């Protein structure tokens, strides 16, 4: 089966600086793919190369089997791009922005009007249809950018930071919308700085850093294989030292912190009963148990070498 996106050996440099280094990436049809990386990692450069806003030095990019250079008209018709930067034609109102966008994609006047009407309603922009984009709020501009990307009903949608600058309510609504269209079979490539967003929405995650693709795996595998988990057990008594028998019975790393025993393991759910049984056998009473699991954000930071800011400790 042909993949929605196939990138092979993609290299791109700007003034001698290598922005993309031998990027290889396959996105299956219908996938919801999260493309993550720190600022300047190469996410937007990859996207610009896919849609034809960048030249690239070497490699190939295929969209549903079509080459983005040789068959550029075909591939551009299959892609809908919601750009990170918000920019609209200042000579057009909201409705016309959508209708003209449909026209550029070869949709006739009548169908363009129908499609614009659908999107105005779907994105709550109907009452602003005659407004210029300067009159829109930040959230409305963001919605219009996404609506514009969807106007020609593309098979692959590229969402570059689609929820940046949106409030929590709008973000949740957009997530639901993205999930809905993905369930309808549309392939989505999402870049975001909100790791929670990627964790909630994406089936597959690709992590790029300094122009190199570091990791591509399913979100589930990433969370399972790269996540550290911890069982925090508050005991009835303070331990002077961890009993040797307990160490023998529990095959995980044990740490004590006052009357709290920390059990660091790969699968806390499996280990929990063993730990409780061992404590019971040692006649050590348990007051409270809590399982703490690494989230995608922690894994992402581990992979990219970033540091999580613990603002709540300050």
């Amino acid at each position: 089966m042909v993949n929605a996106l196939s990138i092979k050996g993609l290299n791109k440099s700007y003034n001698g600086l290598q922005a993309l280094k031998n990027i290889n990436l396959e996105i299956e049809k219908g996938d919801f793919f999260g493309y993550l990386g720190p600022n300047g990692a190469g996410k937007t450069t990859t996207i610009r190369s896919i849609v034809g806003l960048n030249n690239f030095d070497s490699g190939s990019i295929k969209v549903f089997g079509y080459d983005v250079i040789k068959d550029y008209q075909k591939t551009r018709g299959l892609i809908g791009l919601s750009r990170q930067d918000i920019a609209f034609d200042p000579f057009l109102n909201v409705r016309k922005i959508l209708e003209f966008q449909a026209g550029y994609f070869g949709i006739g006047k009548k169908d363009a009007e129908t499609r614009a009407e659908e999107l105005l309603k779907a994105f709550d922009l109907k009452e602003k249809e005659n407004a210029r984009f300067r009159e829109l709020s930040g959230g409305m501009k963001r919605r219009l950018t996404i609506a514009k990307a969807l106007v020609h009903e593309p098979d692959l949608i590229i969402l570059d930071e689609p929820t940046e600058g949106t409030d929590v309510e709008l973000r949740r609504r957009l997530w639901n919308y993205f999930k809905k269209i993905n369930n309808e079979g549309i392939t989505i490539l999402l870049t975001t700085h909100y790791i929670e967003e990627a964790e909630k929405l994406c089936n597959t995650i690709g992590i790029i850093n300094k122009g190199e693709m570091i990791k591509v795996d399913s979100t589930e595998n990433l969370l399972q294989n790269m996540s550290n988990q911890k069982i925090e057990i508050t005991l009835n008594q303070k331990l002077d030292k961890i009993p040797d028998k307990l160490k023998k019975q529990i095959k995980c790393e044990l740490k004590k912190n006052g009357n709290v025993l920390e059990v660091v393991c790969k699968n806390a759910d499996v280990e929990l009963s063993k730990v409780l049984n061992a404590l019971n056998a040692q006649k050590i009473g348990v007051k409270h148990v809590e399982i703490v699991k690494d989230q995608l954000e922690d894994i992402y930071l581990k992979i990219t070498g970033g540091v999580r800011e613990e603002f709540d400790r300050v």
Partner: protein
Amino acid sequence: MKNLTGFKTLLKREIARFMRIKIQTFVPPIMNAALFMIIFGFFIGPRIPQIEGIDFILFFIPGLITLNMITSSYSNSAFSLFLMKFVGHVSDILTAPMSYKEIVLGFTLGGVIKGLLVGILIYLTSLLFKPVIIFNLPLLLFFLILTSFVFASLGLTVGLWASEFEHVEIFTIFLITPLTFLGGVFHSIKFLPPILQTITWWNPFFHIVNGIRYSMIGLNEGNILIGIIMILLLSVASFSINLHLFRKGYKLRT
């Protein structure tokens, strides 16, 4: 054309753009032309001897139309593309499934239409001052359309190249205006000493002005065939250059 709708939409957008600023688009050239006709036609004109039996006002009306048409078609495509780049929504066009030929033609023909409209409006204004009976309408249309095409194309090239607003104006100030004026908009080549006549002969604008003047009022001071060949070659060359630049993504793709 694979995406005829895309091309038509871009052309429609280009027309909608200048029609939205109708006063700015059409009033200044008409006002200027009317003032030129009043001052040079009525106040100064009667003191200037006839040129080949033609009144001065009649002589310069074709030049005035050419001058305004050239600057209108040039500035339309130059500013349209430059503003798109400046605001950032040029990516709407670049990521759409339109061929480079469709994109270049869409922008260029927008400039051609604006140039022709300005030319027609100045012609209609001139009728209030001096009725002009067109000498050769098919030849006039040929020259008007291709002249607008060449300068709309030049505007598009400059719009691509420009990274600041003043870059767009530089060509108008230092190239288009001087060469058009020196190309015989207001004077006959016969007014000039022989050396300047030779220099003027090599000014391509002279052949454009002469072609339009000949097809409008029948006065030929140059060689119409040279004018026809030159404007055809310039049209093909300017279109090909833009097509090449868009294909390469010159100042559009990083």
